[in-house]
């Protein structure tokens, strides 16, 4: 079994198609939608965690790409601007998956991208605009 966090970018013509249910029914994948958004230009953005057998996962993602949906790993979409971060730790207690973490010895904050679920709580909690989600 494999687990992947990905972002789907839908062009307008795919937005109204039942894509996710296909992934579940035809490819036997478990899909956890973390975030969904349709822009005013009717492009869709979906943040998902997909779990399934490696082959099924590859086939499912291939099917999605064939439809014209752009697929990218989630980590690229959440940014921690280290130069803006003051290591105040305001973000660490509200980050559900502990992607924003503090080394208790040095009191230095770091961002573990692979844990991030793009919930966006850190965006509001950071007083220095050191966190950004690109959607």
């Amino acid at each position, binding site marked *: 079994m494999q687990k992947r966090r990905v972002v789907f970018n839908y062009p307008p013509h795919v937005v109204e198609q039942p894509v996710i249910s296909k992934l579940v029914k035809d490819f036997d994948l478990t899909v956890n939608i973390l975030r969904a958004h349709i822009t005013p230009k009717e492009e869709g953005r979906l943040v998902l965690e997909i779990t399934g057998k490696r082959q099924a996962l590859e086939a499912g993602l291939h099917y999605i790409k064939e439809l014209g949906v752009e697929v990218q790993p989630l980590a690229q979409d959440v940014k921690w601007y280290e130069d803006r971060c*003051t*290591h*105040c*730790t*305001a*973000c*660490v*207690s*509200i980050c559900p998956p502990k992607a924003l973490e*503090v080394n*208790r010895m*040095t*009191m*230095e*904050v770091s961002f573990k991208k692979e844990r991030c679920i793009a919930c966006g*709580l850190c965006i*509001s*909690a950071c*007083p*220095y*605009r050191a966190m950004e989600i690109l959607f």
Partner: protein
Amino acid sequence: MAKTIEEINEKIKKGKVVVFTAEEIIDFGKQKGVKKAAQEVDVVTTGTFGPMCSSGAYFNLGHTKPRIKLGGGKVYLNDVPAYPGLAAVDFFLGATAIPEDDPRNKIYPGRFSYGGGHVIEELVSGRDVRLVAMAYGTDCYPRKSLETYISLKDLNEAVLFNIRNAYQNYNVAVNLSDRVLYTYMGMLQPRLGNANYCSAGQLSPLLNDPYYKTIGIGTRIFLGGGIGYVVGSGTQHNPNVERTERGVPKMGAGTLSVKGDLKMMSSKWLRGTSFIGYGPTLTIGIGIPIPILDEEILEYTMVRDEDIWAPVIDYSESYPQMISEPLGWVNYKELKSGKILVQGKEVPTSGLSSYFKAREIAQILKEWIQMGKFFLTKPVELLPSVDSGIIFKPFKERPIKKR
């Protein structure tokens, strides 16, 4: 044997000064013993880097041709209103000022992404800022409007002037209600979802000199990456609060008013800051050297996070309604561990004051002193302490009767 500031400065000049940070002195003092450590150590450096709303800066523009009198008119810097109720080309910009067209909390919670603190950061980083001014015009100052770019180097004076900073200890904020709160202590999650604190603890300046035996009017300090001075006690300076046996205040107590030349400062240590649902402010780096004049002063600087206690306050009811009944007391060692116990529940903690940066400031100040770049000053007068009789009063309202 007691030392004097003059003797310490002589050692700085000769490159023989012994300096420790307020963190390093804890173990050193314990190993050596107070008596020996007090003889060997000359200076202990402190640091803090946190949001400080009672901050601001004043400026002198230089006279325009023809002349304009901003006093009694209006001044905006990148749309943020400054206070011009002074002479012709002087004005003051407060850290929490916001553009008039900012929606504030009308769309709740407001973002407050740009305010006075951000203008100060931009100026210090050398960027151009838009100044728009309106005046009423007089015979001697006929001009009525001005729209221009300004930058720090063009101004005659640009001075950071904070009326209250470096709070000696502070509340730990929690939320007992069922909804998210947006406060100056950050976002507080419902039902004790998190606890936010704001002090550098064992590195914090006034917690290392709890009775203000060395810090006073004229003390030279690290301010925003440059050199500044303590002007005096800050507003709300309140030495007469409950203290531990070692004299450490158990809640917000002393404060400092500080000033310094903005042109010497760096945007690394002056940061525009936005609290969602609350407003903009300025985060400032302050470092204060403590001369080890005798054993008593050394012992104060050996204060540890576990010796410093802070009250846990509910910001859904107690704080806004002025009911100052704490839910309990926690120390900074617990706060920095990442979780505390409140009403039997484990609550995750976050800081608003950066301990990481506070340590860096104490280290920089230590190096400045060791390199002979920074000399200590003897205060003209010490800050009012526990014998001052200061009473911190809540406001007494006297409603105006309508006729």
